[in-house]
């Protein structure tokens, strides 16, 4: 048990991957469950393919809107490079749930640098038994390539003590009605891993 007694979840990935939506759904579920909750993300640049992180913290009383380094109980890594970049935030016994998708940053696509080929191994070495999933394929098979965030939330949902109905309602409230089925299928597939 950490000193602050809260559950801290870091979401890290690339602008456009649905990190802000996933954080919003998660925060609302925490509120519905009667917890104090804070969520903090930095946007403004998000739309333009930059690195994006969002912090969600819940518990009896939450002070800081951001998670301290080394104190995240969970990290949802939306992309391999971004996942490795933020591993310092994970607590020693924290759980990383990582999408194995690779998205080239402009520093790579422009040829200035190479996308490292050992990221999966380095994440495995730095995190205590990370859950690796191909969330992009899961999302495509579920019917929407944009449902990567739901697959990862599904992976997280196994570890949190919220009933499945609460997740379903939380997602239904926030996604367009015609995309709910695809989102829910991706969530359920992520939850099974």
């Amino acid at each position, binding site marked *: 048990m950490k*000193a*602050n007694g809260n559950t801290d979840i870091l979401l890290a990935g*690339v*602008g456009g991957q649905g990190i802000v939506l996933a954080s*919003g759904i998660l*925060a*609302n579920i925490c*509120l519905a469950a009667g917890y*104090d*909750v*804070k*969520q*903090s*993300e*930095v*946007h*403004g*640049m998000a*739309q*333009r*393919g*930059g*690195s994006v992180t969002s912090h969600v913290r819940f518990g009896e009383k*939450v*002070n*800081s*809107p*951001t998670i*301290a*380094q*080394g104190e995240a109980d969970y990290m949802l890594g939306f992309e391999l*490079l*971004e996942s*490795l*970049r933020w*591993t*310092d935030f994970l607590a020693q016994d924290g759980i990383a749930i990582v999408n194995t998708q690779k998205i*080239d*940053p*402009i*520093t*790579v*696509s*422009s*040829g*200035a*640098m*190479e*996308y*490292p080929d050992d990221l999966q191994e380095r994440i495995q070495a*730095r995190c205590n038994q990370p859950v690796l999933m191909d969330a992009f394929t899961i999302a495509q098979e579920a019917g929407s*390539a944009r449902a990567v965030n739901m697959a990862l939330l599904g992976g997280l949902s196994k570890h949190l003590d919220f009933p499945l109905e609460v997740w379903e309602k939380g997602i239904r409230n926030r996604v367009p009605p015609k995309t709910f089925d695809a989102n829910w299928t991706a969530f359920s597939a992520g939850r099974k891993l």
Partner: protein
Amino acid sequence: MKTILSGNGAVARGVYEAGVEVAAAYPGTPSTEILEEIAANYSEIYAEWSVNEKVAFEVAFGASLGGKRALATMKHVGVNVAADALMTAAYTGVNGGMVLVSADDPGMHSSQNEQDNRYFARMAKIPMLEPSDSQESKDFAAFGFELSERFDTPVMLRMTTRICHGRSIVELGERKAGPELTYKKNPQKYVMIPAYARMRHEFVEKRRLELETFAEEFPGNRIEMGDPSIGIISSGVAYQYAREAFPEVSFLKLGFSNPLPLKLIREFAGKVEKLYVVEELEPFIEEQLRAVGLEVHGKDLLPRTGELSPEIIRQSLGKGNGKPAATDLGDLPRRPPVLCPGCPHRGLFHALKKARATVTGDIGCYTLSALPPLEMMDTCVCMGASIGVAQGLVRTIGGRQKDRIVAVLGDSTFIHSGIPSLVNAVYNKANITVVIADNRTTAMTGQQENPGTGQTLQGETVPELDFEGLSRSIGVTHVTTVDPLEVEACEKVIREALAHSGPSVVVARRACIFVDRDQWAAPLDVDSAACDNCKRCIRIGCPAISMDDVSAHVDQHLCLGCELCADICPQDAFIIPGVKENA
């Protein structure tokens, strides 16, 4: 009812509940969503995008004179623009309550500096409220209007990025009407000619003393006693970080931080053994405490740059948890933001590069062109600066570049503060080219309306500002318009503008991809046999294009089919769907 709101959403709600009738702003991260939330949810309030922060402030001030509660919001650097009005409105005071939101950006997530606007409140001698979460953002926003009316002063609500964009739980209330006030002609109060302004300055000093008394009794300034060996004075988000870092110690939390409650601070200092001030950026509170002889630690330990965090506070105060600082992950590729696929700015900068222009830049998405691989913007200072800087530079730069000085700024930025500078260029015969990158929106802050778009914040259709006509009317004789994604035409227009002696204007007009989605087309592909890896397409910095040893590739999920790459490819290696190969 309880809900989760961002700090900005909570300010909008607080303003609504306080019976505000007018809200004005110029968009600026991290403040933008306050007016967007008001426009989306609270139709009882008249809300407008003003052309700049000074005008926004003046609109709110005028509404206050009319007897209604009024709000102006802006980012920290926007207050620089509004400061002229603010400093004297501090003398005149208000009629209906008036609140100015200053949204500061420690850490510069989306800003050109990280100035600490708490000094503006002190300089203007107006009261300042600093919320620490969304509930306080709502409560303080609403309370600000009462405070404003009671002390006859504009009130600053000082937020920071983590408060603006952080979400937390808020208890909602009902809307209540403000007090019944009407417009009253009162030249001695509102006409600041020297004779009257002298009297008002006396009033300001009297008000300052009354505010000092008020600060002592404001319930948002409170002592939270814990372990008395350490006492921490803090405000805003820094309070939350410090609380997280030191849950057991004693706190004096300040919600009202100008003027400071010095009696309360002395009382607190007397109860604790060692006194610290934990504040982001400047030693605003600390220096005032030192000035009255209190022994206090602050910036001798804590950084003056960037955001604070619980671990920075712990380590600065010598109570680190022993965990190592950030691990060296080696040379990981960075992921900077980039111009979007299909962005019309990319075509403009390609043409400017071909023309070997020296570009003075401005504030907007197009500032991203300063980064590799485009590297086509040499300056970025403040809103509208591109045109003024170009006029100085052209008088001192030597060699060929003397005829290749181009100021680039967006439609909204031009309207914000570029127009007087363009008049100056005509008046003083500056040999520069001004490119108005008119993407039909205020894009950087998330596609807001502006006079060029012909739409208002609350959805009214109005005449579109005529950039070409405006330029001609102030005396620019060489004015041309081009679609920046028409490669040859754009290059030609830039060439001709540079060849023109005296000021010239190019309106590079094409809508932002988020404004006009009709222009989204099927992704291109690459004929890898035709591609000879010349990398010309790579140098335009499109995130959809990459290259391996064989050929260029187009990411089928990212490409929006703008065809810029196809137009510049010497080998015609790009395949445009629906167009026959090598047709």
